[in-house]
């Protein structure tokens, strides 16, 4: 019978790690002892319906139903989408920046930060805020999509030790 429960798999992996493992995985298990173990990860994929702009799907994943409000989740993702849209916005200021860069043979970017980079910093701050206020208290962790190449929004679900639910 086939039941690919991620939890069971993760548990078995952890057990195998504990039995015999080299240094590179030793640190992984050390963290398992000290910090709440990672129960599973949810990946919010990109939404390409509007083209190649960076936008994530707002569909609420079922794995988070017990931990998070649908409203909260949608608000987070929507804000992220809006921020990315702002970064990639085509308008007077971005054209000006592009033309200036072209005229200076693109050397201007050695001293100046692009508009996109500024917005990315804003996004990093927003994600940090969200983690502190909303996600960490619920045993979740949002990973900045830029660390995953803007492919996915990774939400790590930690074991809820308070409730005592094993695995």
């Amino acid at each position, binding site marked *: 019978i086939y039941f690919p429960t991620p939890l069971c798999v993760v548990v078995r992996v952890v057990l195998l790690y504990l039995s015999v493992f080299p240094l*590179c995985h030793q640190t992984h298990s050390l963290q398992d002892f000290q910090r709440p173990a990672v129960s599973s990860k949810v990946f919010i994929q990109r939404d390409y319906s509007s083209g190649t702009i960076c936008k994530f799907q707002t569909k609420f994943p079922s794995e988070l139903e017990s931990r998070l409000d649908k409203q909260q989740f949608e608000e987070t993702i929507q804000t992220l989408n809006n921020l990315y849209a702002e970064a990639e916005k085509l308008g007077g200021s971005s054209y000006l920046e592009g033309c200036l860069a072209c005229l200076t043979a693109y050397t201007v970017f050695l001293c100046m930060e692009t508009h996109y980079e500024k917005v990315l910093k804003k996004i990093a701050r927003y994600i940090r805020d969200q983690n502190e206020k909303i996600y960490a208290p619920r045993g979740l962790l949002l990973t900045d999509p830029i660390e995953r190449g803007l492919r996915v929004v990774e939400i790590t679900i930690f074991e809820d030790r308070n409730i005592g639910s094993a695995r």
Partner: protein
Amino acid sequence: MKNCEYQQIDPRALSVSPLSAQSHTEKKEQRPRRKWEVFPGKNRFFCDGRLILSRHSGVLPLTLGLIVVTCGLFFAFDCPFLVKHLTVFIPVIGGALFVFVVISLLRTSFTDPGILPRATLDEAADLERQIDSSGSSTYRPPPRTKEILINQQMVKLKYCFTCKMFRPPRTSHCSLCDNCVERFDHHCPWVGNCVGKRNYRFFYSFIISLSFLTSFIFGCVIAHITLRSQAGKSLVQAIQESPASVVELVICFFSIWSILGLSGFHTYLVASNLTTNEDIKGSWSGKRGAEESGNPYSYNNIITNCCVTLCGPLPPSLIDRRGFVPPDEVVPAASTASEMELPHFSTKNDVNMCTQSTKDVLERMINSGSQTLCSPGPPKTTPLVQGLPSTAALSPEPPPSAGCSGPLGRRPTDSRCPLFSRSREKESLHSINPAFRLASPSPSVTRTAKTLGGAADVSFMPLQPGSVGDEAP
């Protein structure tokens, strides 16, 4: 390189907070590595990761050499005459164009074209689970395309087996650089790099300025020779007085045809918001007739298309070359490093088979974890055996499984266990395989553990610790 030999857990380390313990031990073992050092694609990095170039740098030195030599000859031999007879602005304009061309060329060559980092193990496993859950039979290969709707147009997203993800629209996998590149245009050998989203504007400014430069030099050299021969001398005499001009003339004459043609072609592409890749494949024009509206990415306005492509916001590099590799992270990059080290590494077909059966691997592991079906020796070899039989058992015939095990070993030799005869072959294969031979037994379990823990590539990940640790450059 990273030392991944087996070491006992230090009990004292457990009492300390994990981060300090791990960073302490890590620092003792190795300095923290930057991500470019473990980058899986075929790229070369300079200045500690600041500059990136394709490993197949093509004829970039030739391009640079031609430009520098031609301009050098121009400034040395033609400019003095022209300044005297025409105007001093000639070398000024020539100099400005030359500087612009070289900067654009270097910018195109050394900029990340928009490489997409490969999917992490967790992502790949999750994706595969999604693919499999949507299908009903385990024996059917997973669908490799996903259809989505962009601006009311059906677009197929393909699954990239090397990068373990569905490619975003307009992304293509460059086989020379072994990377998925966003808005992939083409791999330019003259520039020694792929041309993609992030360096297309540099490439375009390079070819436009180069066409201006070659035309300018061509015109100036013609003027030079004409002026010389006008002063009572014949053409041959004029040429004899200034032989360098002939060299420049020849170079410019041949360059102009190709460069002007290329500039014209790319101007058309920019105006219609197409990539060379799409144009060659006829993605939008061939199948759907000659309508411009076939391209879902076009804004149907030439000015807007040009502005978007050339002056739009420049996204940052996604591969974070100068970031540090997190010490506890299993680096998927190294798997490809081992991929390259092993000569018989799989083709895409084999990868397909391996990814297809990862789910089966998980299934086997779960089912047989409590029993030891084939336990000839210590328990730690059992998972190794269990991990691989699925790839063999579920493959209908030997060749696909052999193909999948190809990266791991050579021909099957003996078979001990009656239940999983092919798994035995795999076990012996592992001992034959040099990567496994070099590794101690424990890493092999970890490799399998990693495999079973959800790695999408059954064959690749297991080899990382041993091969990287022992075959370190």
